[in-house]
């Protein structure tokens, strides 16, 4: 079970930079981060950094997380 409070915190941070986050939990945790038209491209950390951030915030092991980033963003 993901930590909903942690998810809310990450969502607040992402929304401040113009991003949205959707999380679906099953056997694995699917995280999709998408850019709004107002997104700040350089403000989103690389996916390699986001995974441990999500691991901490959602309180799930990083190897259970499948992360999808906005197309064209550095991974």
């Amino acid at each position, binding site marked *: 079970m993901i930590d909903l409070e*942690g998810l809310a*915190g*990450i969502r*607040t*941070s*992402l929304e*401040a*930079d113009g991003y949205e986050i959707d999380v679906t939990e099953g056997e694995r945790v699917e995280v999709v981060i998408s850019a709004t038209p107002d997104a*700040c491209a*350089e*403000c*989103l*950390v690389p996916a390699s*950094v986001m995974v*441990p*951030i*999500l691991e*901490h*915030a959602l309180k799930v092991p990083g190897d259970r997380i499948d992360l999808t980033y906005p197309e064209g963003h550095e991974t």
Partner: protein
Amino acid sequence: MGSLIMDPTGQTTRAEAEMRLARRPESLRGRTVGLLDNGKQNAGRFVDELGKVLAERYSIGGVVLRKKPVATVDAPAELLDDLHDSVELVVIAVGDCGSCSAAAVADGIALERLGTPTAVVCTESFKATADAMAVVRGASGYRYATVEHPMAGLPADEVRARAEGVADEVVSLLVDAAVRRGAA
């Protein structure tokens, strides 16, 4: 001077590592403070105003201004070494986006490990990112100061107000011995 304490059993995970912060002075009086502008909009104005407030309220000895070449990634090691060699304390500002908040916290932790007491300032919206980066860098519970979001786009008088409002919190991070116990 700063050191990282790891579990001698070798069982400590990255997230559980305990970091001991650099030794703090009893006060800022007469101390030279490094002000690291991370390059975000209004960060330079903010650290400049914060330096003035620290001089007015805490009689610091002077400031040394430095600027990060890129806000959104860790500062170059040469820049952190230069600050460590040049000043006694450092303030880093401002974490006003996801990547720059994470990078500011990473820089603060790196300076603590060099032995330089450091206070990082982020805007409130990025606490989750800043907290998580602290864990990633082995400093769970690392404390930093926060100001209202955003900093970018504020007029000069509001930047000054942000600096005035957060100055005491910044000082408590730089001199308060209790902070060292809080970084577990």
